[in-house]
C-alpha cells in the first residue's frame, strides 16, 4: 500500500509498473486519474489551489484504503493526491488498485475515489476571471459515496 500527498506531478505508468513488476498473481489493475478542468459550475477556471489538513489527510486516506481492503480481496493499492496550485489539464489525484479479478479492482477503485471526495480533508479554491472562489461540496459526491454504505 502506498499513500502520498505531494505537490509534484505523479506518473501513472510508473506507479502501475512498480505495482506489477515481478508479480504473476495480479490479473487486474484498475486505475483512475482526476484532472483539473478549465470549466466548473459554468465559468472558466484559470487555476486552482488545493489545501489540505496535514496529518489528518494521510490518516483519512489510510482509513479508506483499509476499508477497501476489508471489503474486497486486493493485492495492492496506491493513492496519490496533489496539493498546491494546479492548472487546467494538470492531474490532481491517482488511485491504482490491483486484484486477481477485475470486478474487485473496479469496485475498490471507484469506492476509494467516492470516499476520498467526501471523507478526505482537501479543499479546492478556483481562480476565475471574476476572482477566487472556494469550490462547494457537491450533493452528487455525497450520493456517490452513499451508494457504498452497507445496508
Amino acid at each position, binding site marked *: 500500500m502506498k499513500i502520498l500527498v505531494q505537490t509534484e506531478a505523479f506518473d501513472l505508468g510508473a506507479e502501475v509498473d512498480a505495482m506489477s513488476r515481478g508479480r504473476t498473481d495480479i490479473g487486474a489493475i484498475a486505475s483512475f486519474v*482526476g484532472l483539473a478542468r478549465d470549466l466548473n459550475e459554468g465559468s472558466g477556471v484559470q487555476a486552482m489551489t*488545493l*489545501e*489540505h*489538513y496535514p*496529518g*489528518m489527510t494521510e*490518516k*483519512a486516506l489510510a482509513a479508506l484504503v483499509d476499508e477497501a481492503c476489508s471489503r474486497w480481496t486486493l493485492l495492492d493499492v496506491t493513492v496519490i*493526491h496533489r496539493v498546491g496550485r494546479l492548472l487546467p489539464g494538470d492531474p*490532481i*489525484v491517482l488511485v491504482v488498485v490491483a486484484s486477481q479479478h477485475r470486478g474487485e479492482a473496479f469496485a475498490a477503485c471507484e469506492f476509494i*475515489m467516492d470516499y*476520498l*471526495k*467526501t*471523507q*478526505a*480533508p*482537501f*479543499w*479546492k*479554491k478556483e481562480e476565475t476571471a471574476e476572482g477566487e472562489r*472556494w*469550490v*462547494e*461540496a*457537491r450533493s452528487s459526491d455525497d450520493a456517490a459515496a452513499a451508494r457504498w454504505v452497507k445496508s
Partner: protein
Amino acid sequence: MKLRVLYFARLREHFGVAEETLDFAGATAADLVALLQARGGVWAEELAAGRAFRVAVNQDIVTLDAALPDHAEVAIFPPVTGG
C-alpha cells in the same frame, strides 16, 4: 482544559486565523462551537445553525455531541472538495 483549534479553507480565510490555543471550560464540540459563535461577526455567521461545517477531534470527523479530551486537536472546516 486546553484545546488546539485549527481552521481550514474558507473558514481559515474568513476568520483570519489558521490556528489558536484556547482555554476551554465546556465538554463537547457543540460547547466549543457555541463559544466561537459568541465572538460574533464572521464567527457567528459561519458557525450559525444550518451552515455546513465539519468538526474533527484528533483528526477524526465527529458529530457535535462528541466530548473533547484535554489537549485535543480540534479542526473546524467546510465540507471537503478534494479529488
